[in-house]
């Protein structure tokens, strides 16, 4: 080849050259860089992995549709009140200042994705991703109203008739209903869902509620009904970078070429070996069930979302042919090449990247749980008064004014006592006890005074001090928050 010749002459330098392989083509011919995507009609599939996908459809959607309806102490258990900036998660009341928990959750999710991908490929994509889950639900509707693959293809090709109108119309109605219900449930995380349900009965949503119900509903309808595999192929960022977590010991869905080839149809009674054929009977069912429309027999492709539909359908064919299962199976690249057993492949699971992802995940999970468990039920912000650095009051005492914001993260009114420490004889001159209503954040002006002799003794300038705010009595254990500040003594 031309490339090889260049390389032989110039050694390593040749790698930089991008030779153009001459081919005999019509010089005037052009090809479009854009193309309408062919519609994919995935065939229904049953089997172990399809069952697992349905388990995850139920699990994720019971959580998504169900959670907003749970109540906790007389309020919605999970409510993100954006207007009041309070986030209720069962017993927890979070402030915007608790944003770090969301960061922790996202980092945790990212590492979970890395870990699962390194071990077993695109598990997330194949089973739990909302795009997969809603497509599965929408396909279920489609199958029940329009029939399976062949019936749907025929229906699409057929001219419009009452039957077609009824089937297509019914599908649209069901899709729109699911989309709207999804949009409604989504908004129900931000507006109390029971209030929202009341508004829905009278079509009395506010403008933003309308927008989000319709927008989220439309996104569900469009993505699960029409975009489907296009989302995975052209829009999803995860899909593109997941291959960076793959190596030769990652479980992927693969076709056993050594066993399957040469492929070809044969009577069930025939002896494949005698015919010189492999185990693949070339029934193309693996292509028909594929939701992204690829042929897994061409090897691992970026379009493969790892849904294992081809495994399920091929295993059924192998059973019918009385061949062993697993012509298409979960196997690592090394395992497929070497014909390894599952146990042999499992021995290669604990690779450095898996250990590192796992260790980071455990560390972040531990930090996350510990930080939630040790969380104080209130927060305090200390801001020095901006009007004056310091002032002298009667009998020469030096006074500094601070504004303390006490944020009550419980759902009952609380009393707090404020003390100062760090400077001897410094004392609070304003009322030391303050009361804050449930989930309320209140500002208090706090005056701290220092006797003149002490002020003279420590000298002018800023002196470090500390506010100690203690939650008093009532329900719950004692809690105390310390905040640093400074005390100014004027010249």
């Amino acid at each position, binding site marked *: *080849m031309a*490339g*090889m010749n260049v390389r032989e002459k110039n050694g390593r330098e040749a*790698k930089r*050259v*991008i*030779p*153009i*392989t001459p*081919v*005999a*083509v*019509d*010089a005037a*011919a*052009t*090809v*479009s*860089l*854009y*193309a*309408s*995507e062919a519609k994919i009609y995935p065939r229904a599939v049953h089997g172990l992995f399809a069952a697992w996908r349905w388990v995850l459809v139920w699990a994720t959607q019971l959580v998504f549709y169900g959670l907003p309806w749970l109540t906790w102490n007389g309020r919605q258990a999970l409510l993100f009140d954006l207007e009041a900036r309070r986030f209720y998660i069962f017993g927890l009341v979070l402030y915007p200042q608790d944003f770090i928990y969301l960061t922790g959750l996202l980092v945790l999710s990212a590492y979970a994705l890395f870990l699962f991908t390194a071990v077993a490929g695109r598990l997330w994509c194949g089973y739990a991703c909302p795009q997969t889950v809603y497509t599965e639900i929408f396909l279920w509707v489609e199958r029940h109203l329009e029939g399976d693959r062949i019936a749907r293809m025929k229906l699409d090709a057929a001219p419009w008739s009452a039957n077609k109108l009824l089937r297509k119309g019914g599908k649209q109605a069901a899709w729109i209903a699911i989309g709207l219900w999804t949009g409604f449930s989504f908004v129900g995380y931000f507006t109390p869902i029971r209030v929202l349900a009341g508004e829905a009965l009278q079509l009395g949503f506010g403008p933003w509620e309308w927008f989000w119900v319709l927008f989220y509903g439309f996104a569900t309808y469009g993505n699960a009904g029409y975009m489907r595999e*296009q989302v995975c192929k*052209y829009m999803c960022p995860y899909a593109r970078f997941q291959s960076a977590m793959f190596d030769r010991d990652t479980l992927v869905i693969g076709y056993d070429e050594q066993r399957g080839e040469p492929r070809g149809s044969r009577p069930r009674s025939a002896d494949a070996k005698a015919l010189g054929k492999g185990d693949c009977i070339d029934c193309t069912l693996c292509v028909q069930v594929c939701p992204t429309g690829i042929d897994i027999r061409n090897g691992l492709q970026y379009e493969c979302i790892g849904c294992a539909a081809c495994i399920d359908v091929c295993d059924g064919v192998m059973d019918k042919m009385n061949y062993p299962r697993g012509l298409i199976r979960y196997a690592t690249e090394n395992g497929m090449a070497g014909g390894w057993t599952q146990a042999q492949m499992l021995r290669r699971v604990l690779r450095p990247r898996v250990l590192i992802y796992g260790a980071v995940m455990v560390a972040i999970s531990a930090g996350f749980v510990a930080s939630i468990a040790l969380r104080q039920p209130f927060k305090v912000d200390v801001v020095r*008064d*901006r*009007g*004056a650095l310091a*002032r*002298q009051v*009667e009998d020469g005492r030096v*006074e500094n*004014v601070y*504004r303390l914001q006490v944020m009550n993260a419980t759902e009952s009114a609380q009393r707090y006592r404020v003390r100062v420490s760090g400077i001897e004889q410094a004392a609070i001159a*304003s*009322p030391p006890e303050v009361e804050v209503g449930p989930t309320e954040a209140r*500002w*208090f*002006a706090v*005056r701290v005074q220092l006797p003149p002799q002490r002020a003279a003794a420590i000298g002018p300038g800023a002196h470090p001090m500390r506010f100690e705010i203690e939650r008093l009595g009532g329900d719950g254990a004692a809690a105390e928050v310390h905040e640093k500040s400074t005390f100014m003594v004027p010249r």
Partner: protein
Amino acid sequence: MSDFFSQGWSIYIGAVTLLGLLACLVLLFIASRREVMAADNSTGHVWDEDLREMNNPLPMWWVVMFVLTVAFSLAYLFLYPGFGSAAGSLGWTSLGQYDAEQRAAQAEMAPLYARFAAMPADKLAAEPQAMAIGERLFINHCAACHGSDARGSKGFPNLTDNDWLHGGTPEKIEETITEGRQGMMPPMAAAIGGPQEIHEVAQYVLSLSGSAHDPTAQFGKPRFMACAACHGIDGKGNQALGAPNLTDKIWLHGWGEEAITAMINNGKLNVMPAQKDRLGKAQIHVLASYVWSLSNRGPAAAP
């Protein structure tokens, strides 16, 4: 467009914007086809021995979305300002939006303020909502000088004690906030005499409040007559003039002989700015009631 002398720049920007949009479409069109270089649906390039670039066509819906963004831009430029100096057919301005939001907020608050305006200060002081609004108004408009606890500092009066320069009734406080105040102490050295006389008067002033003073205070008493025109014979001040009471231990501009001597020698012009241009009448009423409440709610309730 007062920044420019002519419409030239506006036309230039408009042309660049329009050409940019058209160039997007042209680019989309001219990059949509390419010559066939290899029979295997690749670009024909091979490198690193076996790496080839395949032609995986972008979906048509992507092209449609691209065209839609251009259409959106054109529609936006037609409706909103952005095309050169054109104002846009909706006539939107950031100032107009601000005014509209202000009007909406005021309309929303109007019934509340109408109710508050009809209530006297002592009733408002018992209304938590009015006091919360008052506190926020105070923090935004007053705390910069008077402190967030309203206790002031040197030169800025404490509003929580019951010592008032210009009167502490709710009506007087309202007047102070609306119109502002000017406290003027003229330099009095010439009327009193030399340093010794001024020392004596300062000692006398200290004695008025029972503060520590030396025996020369008694010689200062006759000379204090020069001060009595404003501060009164007894030194208790005059709220009509804004002359402070000298018999309490509240010293707005510093205590001790040094501060008093400086005041006699140099005088002082102390200004409280008028707020009528920044706050509405109803707001001032609520704010005045809040300030009044600070010294009329009993010490426990004061912040």
